[in-house]
């Protein structure tokens, strides 16, 4: 049942929103956090399990080094302090997705704490930076996957029973928790979205996760409360779970603002509760109230030893942190002379790193961008693979550009050469030689082809002569076809006009 909401602008005129975001990221390690089971996605159910992740009696956890390193690197990238000493804790609860009856997590001693992330959004006064304060980033483990059987909807409500696959139980998770984010005013939805997007870019840059929100490797919970003025004390918050796309983060914040405002204005209090986000309808519904289900009886994990990262180790890891993606983006936009829109295209195509690599190897930035966001994106898309999976290197592109600049290849022939690269036919020169790719620079064959094209379409010459130069396109096309793309189209056009005595 949908609850009453208030118009967003009215809600914002009456209340000051305070945001909190909890993001869970599944690490891309080879093995689980506390056992050597594989983390590969999509295996048959209950085949990536062992006594440790099934919680069998007597099994002892062993800590994944890359999991810890990733946690420290994430902390550093988020400007956090790294604990000198920390330990794991057991979070006790009974739910079939966690066979141990507790989740191994961190409680009072997170590995990273006190950080921030700056995010930029468009405001009425232009681009503006908001600093999102980060409370902590801690290590924990994912749960198994329940599927519910019976009932009408396949949901947990009304199900007759459930089936559990523990392949995912124990996969390393990092939970990143913000402090209350204040001062966003009406931009709370945009700040929330920009934060999750910036976090995703950082995590991707670190190479610690594939950060696919749609597959659940990045998941977001949105906390929101309203207060009457920025000076009032914090209001009661709701926690909207599993908001799993950037667009939904923005919508969920907006929705909760309007829902809270309606309640508060009607004199009802906001219920402190967990809510479920519904992507399809764009509303949240009440889940369970915060009650004794939240009494997790944390205690220190006796089966795992504390972690005391040496400062040398932390500095070693700090040296592996790539430039902040937002800073890097601004630098590249300036270096390459792109518009923000062009840059969006580059980033959305997933080609940024590949273009940077090519530019570093000496390929012109505009050319590298053209190939990776154009032809190569199309090819990857057709084949349903990622750009990185194409066997095209900066060396290939560099040679291709040299040949184009020298006039011995045109765009069309260059594309054929790339097809050769992708088909594994060797380097550019070998492909050009083997496929006989070369622009026909001799006018003789071109003139012959032009004559042929004109003979095949006798009316076209008169049309062009009458001043309809656009008609030349069909002749040029016919010549290109006859020469299997090996002609220089501009030269064909020139020769055609010369022949017909027309000037452009």
């Amino acid at each position, binding site marked *: 049942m949908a609850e009453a909401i208030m118009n967003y602008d009215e809600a914002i005129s009456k209340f000051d929103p305070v945001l909190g975001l909890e993001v869970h990221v599944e690490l891309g*390690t*080879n*093995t689980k956090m506390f*056992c*050597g*089971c*594989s983390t590969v996605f999509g295996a*048959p*159910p*209950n*085949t*990536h*399990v*062992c*006594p440790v992740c*099934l919680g069998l009696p007597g099994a002892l956890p*062993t*800590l*994944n*080094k*890359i*999991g*810890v390193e990733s946690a420290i690197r994430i902390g550093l990238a988020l400007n956090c302090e790294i604990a000198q*000493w920390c*330990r794991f804790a057991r979070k*006790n609860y*009974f*739910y*079939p997705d966690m066979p141990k009856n507790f989740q191994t997590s961190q409680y009072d*001693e997170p590995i990273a704490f006190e950080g921030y992330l700056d995010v930029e959004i468009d405001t009425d006064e232009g681009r503006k930076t908001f600093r999102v304060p980060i409370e902590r980033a801690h290590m924990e483990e994912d749960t198994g996957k*329940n*599927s*519910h*059987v019976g009932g009408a909807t396949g949901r*947990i*409500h*009304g*199900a*007759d*029973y*459930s*089936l*559990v*696959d*523990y392949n995912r139980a124990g996969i390393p998770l990092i939970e990143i928790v913000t402090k209350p984010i204040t001062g966003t005013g009406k931009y709370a939805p945009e700040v929330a979205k920009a934060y999750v997007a910036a976090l995703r870019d950082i995590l991707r840059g670190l190479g610690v996760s594939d950060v696919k929100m749609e597959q659940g490797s990045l998941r977001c919970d949105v906390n929101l409360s309203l207060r009457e003025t920025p000076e009032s004390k914090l209001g009661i918050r709701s926690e909207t779970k599993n908001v799993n796309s950037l667009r939904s983060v923005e919508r969920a914040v907006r929705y909760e603002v309007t829902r809270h405002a309606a309640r508060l204005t009607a004199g009802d209090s906001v219920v402190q509760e967990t809510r479920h986000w519904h992507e399809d309808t764009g509303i949240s519904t009440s889940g369970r109230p915060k009650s*004794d289900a939240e*009494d997790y*009886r944390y205690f*220190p994990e*006796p089966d795992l*030893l*504390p*972690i*005391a*990262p040496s400062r040398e180790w932390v500095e070693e890891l700090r040296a592996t942190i790539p430039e902040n993606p937002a800073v890097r983006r601004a630098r590249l936009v300036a270096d390459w002379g792109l518009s923000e829109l062009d840059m969006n295209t580059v980033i959305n195509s997933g080609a940024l790193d590949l273009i940077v690599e090519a530019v570093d190897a000496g390929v012109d930035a505009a050319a590298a961008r053209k190939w990776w966001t154009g032809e190569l994106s199309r090819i990857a898309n057709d084949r349903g693979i990622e750009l990185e999976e194409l066997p095209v290197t900066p060396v290939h592109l560099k040679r291709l550009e040299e040949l184009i600049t020298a006039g011995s290849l045109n765009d069309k022939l260059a594309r054929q050469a790339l097809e050769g690269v992708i088909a594994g036919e060797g380097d550019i020169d070998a492909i050009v030689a083997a496929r006989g790719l070369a622009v026909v620079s001799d006018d003789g064959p071109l003139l012959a082809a032009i004559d042929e094209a004109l003979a095949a379409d006798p009316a076209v010459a008169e049309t062009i002569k009458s001043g309809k130069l656009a008609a030349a396109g069909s002749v040029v096309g016919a010549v290109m076809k006859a020469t299997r793309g090996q002609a220089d189209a501009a030269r064909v056009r020139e020769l055609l006009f010369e022949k017909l005595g027309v000037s452009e």
Partner: protein
Amino acid sequence: MSGISQDDVAHLAHLARISIPADQLGHYADQLGAILDAVAQVSSLDTSDVPAMSHPVPMTNVFREDIPGVSLTAAQALSGAPAVEDERFRVPRILDEE
């Protein structure tokens, strides 16, 4: 006195999914209270210069390399399950009817 009430015992029993008849709550409250009182004797000592200990073993940073090991087969994993369906553990309805 640690002051464990019957309500505390009922709450803990619920969290731990242990069934304790109402007429025994007082019995367990007394026992748990006595245990906590015994442990509380530690607080009579001056521990101001004793660092807090979070683990009895004086070791840190014991890690495993991120290399896959041997997992169980689904048949092995499920061999002790009370109920199985579709290569998955079958568990009773999670939520009560509302």
